[in-house]
């Protein structure tokens, strides 16, 4: 099995050190070799199972409910928020704007 560990790490948004890349590539090769045993089975006529129980979409009205968690409480636990505590704060997203 061939894959590009660098491309995977980019997709998964994880920085990997050089040694880590080597080690994890090796692990992934072995695991993929192991899981490929399912290729022995003929499954052309088999339906895939994504979910074991027959379930339906669940909808509700979009309304404020009394048991909702307050925005204040959510903002209080952020890794970083604006000084007045009412926004998520993240590093600059758009380049070239000061």
């Amino acid at each position, binding site marked *: 099995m061939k894959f590009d560990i660098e491309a995977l790490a980019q997709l998964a948004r994880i920085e990997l050190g050089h040694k880590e890349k080597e080690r994890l590539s090796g692990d992934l090769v072995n*695991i993929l070799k192991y899981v490929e045993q*399912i290729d022995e089975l003929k*499954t052309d006529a*088999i339906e895939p199972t994504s979910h074991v*129980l027959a379930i339906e979409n669940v909808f509700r009205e979009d309304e404020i409910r009394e048991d909702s968690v307050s925005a204040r409480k959510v903002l209080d636990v952020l*890794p970083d928020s604006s000084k007045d505590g009412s926004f998520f704060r993240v590093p600059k*997203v758009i380049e070239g704007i000061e």
Partner: protein
Amino acid sequence: MELFKYGIKQAREFIQANNEHFLALQRALVERAGTVDKKVNAYVSFSSSKLPTSLNQLSGGPLHGVPVSLKDNMCTDGWETTCASNILQGFIPPYDATVISKLKDAGAYIFAKCDMDEFAFGSSCETSCYNGRNNRKKKANASATRNPWNVDYIPGGSSGGSAACVAADEAVCSLGSDTGGSIRQPAALCGVVGLKPTYGRVSRYGLVAFGSSLDQIGPFTKTVYDNALLLQVIAGHDPKDSTSAHEPVDDYLATINKGVKDLRIGIPKEYFRFKIREDMPEKELMGNEGLDYDVELRIREAIKVYQNLGAKIVDISLPHTKYAVAVYYIIGTAEASSNLARFDGVQYGLRVYADNLREMYFKTRDEGFGDEAKRRILLGTFVLSSGYYDAYYKKAQKVRTLIKQDFDNAFQQCDVILTPTSPTPAFKIGEKLDDPISMYLSDIFTISANLAGIPALSVPCGFSKNGLPIGMQLMGKYFSEATLFQAAHTFESATDHHTKRPAL
């Protein structure tokens, strides 16, 4: 009997709305945790100052005054929830998971939060960030949970802390979560009772998601009776979890004493190494070579116990058993890689600062996730990626159908399926940590129940030659938890394995 040895039934009988008794039990457990947790390390978050000081602070109900310990992947309002990961250090949820609300409504309170494999990725608790070698702050001497029966051995995982605290009598009971065996395997390895309910039986709202089509929360207890009591409280439909089932909840204690005379117990040949019965031809037997000899002996003894109790033993086959681990490591990692995308330094716990947003994601996720989490995220990303999706993910979903059909067919012939829970007793710390596949194979007997969504329970059935606990697994039809409790309670009443406790 010392108070800290109490299970739920005894605790309830002792407390009876008596505040002095409530406090005496709490004190006994706090002292016990103070003595034994230095060795066992089951608790990652424990503080006696967080505990209620009077019964009046709790609701009345079937668990009035009963302390419950929780795996650290269930959101607890105002109480740090880390999933034993560096990336969630400092995350204090703003709400309670539904199971926690249900426990509180029933009069219970949170006693402590338990160690686990990071994000429930593992079968030994060793991937926990509280294990020195994984800790971002390099607390090299720190240790993850150890097996109370022998602290050189792992407690199992991923809910190792939840199993160990009950086995070590530093908890009355606990909750864990099970995606591929994470309740049943540690329950077996620590000698306690652990149940993975039917998918959808217990709300997943507030459980930090790993594999959303596989995850279930379930109880760890000292007896089967206690397990039924605890499931009764946490089971039921929840409008906040769109995958929770509308099925009515049975009265689990009503049928627990019914015995096994009317039960057909299926023995799947694929789960055994040797001939199951003398009259079977040798060549019919799929040698399951990973199965430990002591484990096989104990399971055979358990089958005899059931025979003597009047159950009908039936030979069955689950022909796709050997593919379960492969299917699981495709579907489970695919789901995990999408669920863990939310941990990027913006909303929860750890942020590693960088000049721009993209770099912050990469650095936060690099420092925040341990080896096994990275492995699974990368694998999941791969099997879902364009060009490989059909060959891996879709193929695995089809084989999942075959595994589910195996059970549908088997349950035409029997009511309950009996197997070993884990192919071996507890293994030594460090033994499998650097060999992912060998670690994954310790879930070979438990994974199928998650893929099929059926309920499965592990109950103690004896010990290995070197004194480590062995568990047997009982699997049932969808929503047949009452039947599993009935079968397990009958076995427990006829044996004394559950009365043994480790010397600590």
